[in-house]
């Protein structure tokens, strides 16, 4: 009984402390919502998943600058956890009370346009055509039937990081990274270091840091489902890529690969930092991890090697757009804010402070020369900017948004030795074709 008394005292204290917060539709709640005004300003709700110690101050500085740059609109930034932010956005759209601006996945922008989850921005673009500011591949990903449903904000690509000290040790020229798939193999053989049966250093494994699809794109330059909704899974180039990947898998064996792979997937401990991995495909922002977690690493970067000379260093990327959820109350003001967010000044600030690739071309190019970057940072950023024009996205096809669930298991079957690459691609093609036909 004494416990209960103690608990009720605690309870009352808590309620007093919280001031019944959360049970009143008080001033603060009213101010946040919709067109409610404070000082005659329109208040915009802006949701992002940037809540970390590093990113939050940067996005909030941009918001503050915007708020100070004019006197009609006040943006309020809210952090909503990564991934779940979009479930919440969707629910709020369904309920007719969405926020004003949300950062969302670029690859599914057209799909969200088609489903009426995002507002059509065409009427604003007719007045202010800003489409030229962005990389073409990014811009195209926002289009559904020719209309844009989101403005590209940031992006990424895949490049090759390599350990210069390991190169030297293996008798390779640290200034000459591999340029083709054959060279990758050749260099990896030299970089491999074995103690008996156990690998002490792996030269390279293409699927650490990149998926099967990235290499297929690198070889073929065509997505699994192209713009005309044609299925392009079983192509000669993609088959070559799969065979090539399988040969890497056989080279190191499942046990070695799985062990290292799970290490990297768990986002703790990275063998590249300790020099146990000679080369690794990663996003350019991986540089910040090297800077923070392995500052002494002597590394270089290069474009993703090409399948054979002349095939092109096609890489793969993604990114995010700023969009106005369908049914948002203040689209005109939201558009003003989005324009600011994706304009050169804000983009450059974001690029430099975050060491992140941005969608605005001019901002990306001037960031590469930023005085705030040291030599290593400049090199990586410059290379990323160089890779951007050759970087492809994988926009979610509207006819078969969930097709990866069908093809990934087929790739797994190849690596497990249960199917030949030929058989797997044939089966994958048939399954995707069936899904496309069903949905058409």
């Amino acid at each position: 009984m004494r416990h209960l008394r103690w608990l009720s005292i605690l309870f009352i204290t808590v309620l007093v402390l919280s001031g019944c917060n959360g049970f009143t539709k008080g001033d603060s709640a009213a101010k946040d919502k919709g067109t409610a005004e404070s000082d005659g300003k329109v208040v915009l709700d802006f949701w992002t998943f940037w809540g970390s110690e590093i990113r939050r101050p940067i996005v909030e500085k941009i918001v503050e600058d915007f708020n100070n740059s004019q006197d009609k609109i006040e943006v309020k930034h809210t952090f909503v956890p990564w991934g779940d932010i979009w479930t919440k956005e969707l629910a709020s759209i369904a309920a007719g009370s969405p926020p004003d601006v949300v950062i969302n996945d670029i690859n599914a922008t057209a799909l969200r346009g088609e489903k009426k989850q995002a507002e059509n921005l065409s009427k604003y673009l007719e007045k202010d055509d800003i489409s030229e500011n962005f990389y073409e591949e990014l811009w195209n990903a926002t289009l559904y039937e020719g209309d844009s449903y989101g403005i590209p904000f940031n992006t990424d690509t895949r490049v090759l990081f390599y350990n210069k000290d390991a190169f030297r040790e293996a008798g390779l020229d640290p200034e000459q990274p591999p340029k083709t798939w054959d060279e990758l193999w050749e260099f990896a053989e030299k970089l491999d270091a074995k103690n008996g049966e156990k690998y002490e250093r792996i030269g390279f494994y293409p699927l650490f840091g990149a998926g099967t699809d990235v290499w297929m794109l690198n070889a073929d330059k065509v997505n699994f489902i192209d713009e005309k909704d044609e299925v392009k899974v079983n192509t000669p180039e993609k088959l070559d890529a799969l065979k090539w990947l399988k040969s890497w898998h056989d080279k190191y064996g499942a046990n070695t690969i799985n062990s290292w792979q799970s290490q990297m997937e768990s986002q703790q401990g990275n063998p590249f930092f300790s020099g146990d991995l000679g080369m690794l495909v990663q996003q350019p922002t991986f540089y910040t991890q090297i800077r923070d977690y392995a500052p002494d690493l002597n590394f270089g970067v290069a474009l993703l090697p090409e399948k054979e000379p002349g095939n092109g260093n096609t890489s793969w990327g993604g990114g995010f757009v700023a969009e106005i959820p369908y049914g948002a109350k203040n689209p005109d003001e939201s558009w003003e804010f989005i324009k600011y967010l994706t304009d050169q000044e804000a983009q450059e600030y974001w690029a430099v402070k975050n060491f992140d690739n941005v969608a605005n071309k001019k901002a990306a190019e001037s960031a590469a020369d930023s005085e705030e970057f040291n030599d290593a940072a400049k090199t990586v950023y410059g290379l990323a900017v160089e890779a951007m024009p050759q970087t492809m996205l994988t926009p979610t096809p509207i006819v078969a948004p969930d097709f990866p669930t069908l093809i990934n298991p087929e790739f797994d079957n190849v690596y497990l030795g249960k199917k030949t690459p030929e058989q797997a691609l044939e089966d994958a093609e048939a399954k995707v074709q069936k899904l496309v036909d069903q949905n058409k």
Partner: protein
Amino acid sequence: MTGRKRFNYKTKEGLQGYIFILPWIIGFIVFTAGPLLFSFAASFTNYNITSQMDFIGLKNYEKLFADDQLFWTSLYNTLYYVAFSVPITTVGAILLSALLNRDIPGMRFFRTIYYLPAVLSGVGVYLLWMQLLEPGTGLVNTVLAWFGIAGPNWLFDPAWAKPALIFMKLWSVGGGMLLYLASMQGISKSLYEAAEIDGANAWQQFIRITIPMITPVIFFDIVTSLIGGFQIFQEAYVMSNGEGGPVNSLLFYNLYMWKKAFEAFDMGYAMAMSWILFIIVFVLTIINLKLAPRWVHYEGGGK
């Protein structure tokens, strides 16, 4: 006279019964019934949450049964998980609570320790387990190696991915343990004393006294973990990066449904899936309820 009085009493008692369950009835009508009916109705449409909801008859159901390989894959994976995880965790929780139900020093600490995993929840724990199940340097395989066992590749091997999740589930049997412990605490000590004098050993006492006395809770545990097992989602989602694991070995029913609902935005289809799952689980629960009188022992004599 007496008959009428009895009748009156019965009506009065019945009325009291409805008052007891009134909060639930109100809650059900206000909060639950609407969304349930909506999801049932929408399962006959092409509902995509935001822009369309046209009646399409039984098409979603037809497609599921006739034309969707992944539906069967996900159903198989889920049945596999339920078939192993429910018995294993039930037995595990009962044995553990039997050990924790003795009056020996340090018991409060032991109970707290074993309950700990049940308190830990969420994404962080699953990421932690990915680390522990790492085939090379992970803690699980390191410990297995001490006993000369070469551990499998767990989450990377389609044959071991589901057992890995079951193993992980076993780690957090603390929740079930708590239920059994609460139930065992209610068993009168005199029963054990009498059995001990009759020469029954610990195992015999456990089988003849403890087990029958906790059958109401075993029944509860089986029914609820069956229902919960069919809804396994988050661990599979996190530990396969939302992909469904090697060769879709972790593509559980709810994960596939989630992908349909929130990746393909085919919510009508997902709702049809949910009602098929409902029927499966409902039938299994009814079977359980029907079988219960044969083995569940209520001391109160109630049914």
